[in-house]
């Protein structure tokens, strides 16, 4: 599990200084926005209820059913559209949880691992555990977690978060190791600020950049892992329109010429992941601008500066 992120200086160097660059950066978010819009507007744009049998089974694509129907007569277009909703729901929740969790754990590890005592031991232990989990393939880890917790949306969320939280942990830890050498931290300490407050006010805001920029990657990876788990039969419960399950249940008929039940959801996975990947490339260009605004708005930071 690796993630590529530029450091703050590099990011600033490529920051859009002209209006044209900003517009291009904003436009880069269009594919991601499109995926999210499909998810949000699914009830409006889907022609049929995705979990109701609306026609004969296994109908090929036609003007009535653009993507055909599946083994029980459900409209595949509607299910594919609603599949985006499921993917985005899981993607957003997992991305937020992983990033928040990763930042907190990574900050703790970065600040504590070199110290002595129980905290140091705990920090080094967490770092080791994170490294071990990072070495386990995502789907395997997902299978184990769902196997232990049982199949449910909550278990899937925990499983995928556990798979994807390791990247922000490592990214934040590295940043914290860099930030903690900054002289302003020494100044804060001399001014009498507690370690906890220094971590909250100075270390964390200056270390979350890479983890924040990694969020879309988590989103994209979540879509892939969710589809993978659905494909092997431990994803969301049928007949929930989930892309992986749709591909899995449609794959059998592929060799007999019924291609549409598997191909359309597979294309949806591919396109949405590519869209998320494309949009995430704009993050490094946009982040410095956003970071400046966030720092200006941050009430804790304002108070500290005051």
């Amino acid at each position, binding site marked *: 599990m690796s993630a590529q992120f530029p450091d703050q200086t590099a990011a600033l160097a490529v920051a859009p200084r002209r209006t044209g660059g900003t517009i291009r950066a904003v436009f880069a978010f269009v594919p991601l926005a499109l995926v999210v819009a499909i998810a949000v507007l699914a009830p409006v744009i889907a022609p049929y209820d995705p979990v109701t049998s609306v026609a004969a089974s296994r109908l090929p694509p036609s003007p009535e059913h653009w993507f055909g129907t599946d083994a*029980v*007569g459900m409209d595949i277009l509607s299910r594919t559209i609603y599949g985006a909703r499921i993917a985005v729901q899981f993607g957003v929740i997992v991305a937020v949880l992983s990033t928040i969790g990763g930042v907190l754990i990574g900050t703790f590890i970065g600040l504590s691992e070199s110290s002595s005592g129980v905290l140091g031991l705990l920090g080094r232990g967490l770092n080791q555990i994170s490294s071990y989990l990072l070495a386990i393939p995502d789907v395997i880890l997902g299978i184990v977690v769902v196997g232990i917790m049982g199949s449910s949306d909550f278990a899937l969320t925990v499983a995928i978060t556990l798979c994807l939280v390791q990247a922000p942990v490592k990214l934040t830890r590295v940043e914290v190791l860099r930030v903690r050498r900054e002289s302003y931290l020494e100044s804060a300490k001399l001014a009498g600020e507690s370690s906890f407050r220094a971590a909250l006010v100075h270390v964390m805001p200056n270390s979350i950049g890479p983890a924040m920029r990694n969020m879309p990657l988590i989103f994209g990876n979540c879509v892939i892992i969710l589809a993978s788990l659905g494909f092997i039969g431990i994803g969301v419960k049928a*007949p929930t329109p989930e892309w992986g399950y749709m591909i899995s249940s449609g794959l059998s008929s592929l060799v007999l010429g019924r291609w549409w039940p598997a191909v359309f959801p597979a294309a949806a*996975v591919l396109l949405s992941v590519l869209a998320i990947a494309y949009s995430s490339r704009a993050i490094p260009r946009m982040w410095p601008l956003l970071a400046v605004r966030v720092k200006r708005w941050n009430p804790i930071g304002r108070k500290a500066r005051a």
Partner: protein
Amino acid sequence: MRKITKAGGVVAIGAAIVLAVTGCTSAGNSNSNSNSNSATKKTSLTVAVAALPTSFDLDGAFGASNENYTMWSQTQIGLLNYKTKLENGVVVTDFTHFEGALADKDNPYTVSDDGQTYTFHLRKDVVSQAGNPLTAEDVRWSIERKLSDGGVGLTQVKAYFNNPDQMEVIDDHTIAFHLHNAGNDNVLLPVLTGQTGRIYDKVELLKHATPDDPWAVKWATQNTGWGFGPYTVSSMTQGQQIVLKANPKYVLGEPAFRTITMKVVPDSGTRAQLVSSGGVDVAEALAPADLATIAKSPKVQEPKVKNPIEFIDLSLVQNKAPFDDKTVRQAFFNAVPYKEIIDKVYSGFAVESSGWFTGTMNVPGLSTKPAYTYDVDKAKKLLAQAGKSSVDVTLSVPNNVPDVVDAAILIGSFAKKAGFNVTVNQLSPADFATGRLNHSFQSLLVANRVQIQYPSFVNNFFLPGDPSNSGDFQPTAEWNELFASAAAAGPQTSKEAAPYWQKINDFINDDASQIPILYKQPNQAYSKDLVNMTYRYDSTVDYSILKPAR
């Protein structure tokens, strides 16, 4: 970078699947050519199966899978066989007539005047796959083994032999069974004919017995060669294939096909494609949609029968809310879209169900009217009577049977119009079997079959504590009285007894706890180069009677 790699991985996997499938197809075609070249001397078959058997011993590890049934019936045999009849090119079991298998061909058994003693006369010069001669002691020991193991599938045997003393070895080739309850409900002969009546080579099995395992159950689950059946297992590569070799000393004559190679092809669509392209000679366990797709293939023939006995069993568990209320159960059965399931999921490879009693049982004049039909208004009305307007239901299904999963999804889709919010709980076969044994489900849908097509045998599915009693039915006084009346009314296939069996069928349907919702057609496809497609009590292929068409 990572996501690009994964996206590329998805594409690569997709391409790999396509290439693999294409590879299979090509391989299949090349096999086909070689097969047709050697058609005149064909003595071997290649079969595409969904999985390998998990046990070679019914007594040791009961697991009612298609693969296990196939293996048990191809490696073992009992005292009797059902006679068969040819219907539309299919060799169909006649459940009312018997012929000697290990018992003498012309005079298999005699019955005492009081109907309490059955004396079987064994064939002479019969030897087991291990080479040991068949004796009456083998028969006695085999029945005693079924009683002693406590196997869950052998309650049928226990109903007749609750004490080994009921068996009397008269001489090396004669054995008598003294029954305690013979009468019009007697199903002794079917019990000795199907899967439950297999006879074992005592001498061979005892070689592998240990103090901890006096019946050699552990050894027998993993080894063959201790039966009298038409085939033995030559080799098995776990997860890939099993090879059967014909038993040259088989009592009913050496099978025409001396080698059966069963290759595991987990995907139904691929199995169907293989048989339609000539890559294999037989494909088992095909999904109905795949059967329909290849039905017109010039190389394929599919058995269809008038009275299928394999069914989809919907159980609403009586001791679990909300199905502890009979009215809610009836409402649910009115919310099941029977016709839609037959049309959409089974593509016409199924027929409506009037309940537990099938045409094969030969009870004259039994109603063929469906037990229930889809009637949303009636379902809502019944729910209202039960004081409910919306009910949450968890319907558990095994995830390895696509048609059962799809049927459950369709039930959920249609039942919500009546107020049932159905969650389909897909479980691995192992988890499903465990839940079924533990009676932990609220409702379940499963493929099942009544292997003994006698009206009174239906009682076997409603015995308290029995795994087959999926609805946790508790016999009532009315139930017991109905069965006693039916048994006293005369032979089960008589006109006199028929109204009583009809009453029992109506009682079960009204109770709405465990009812077959449809009967499915056989799920195999054969090459047109073969004759003697079979439809048996266990719905498996009988490879021992398959022959080349020319």
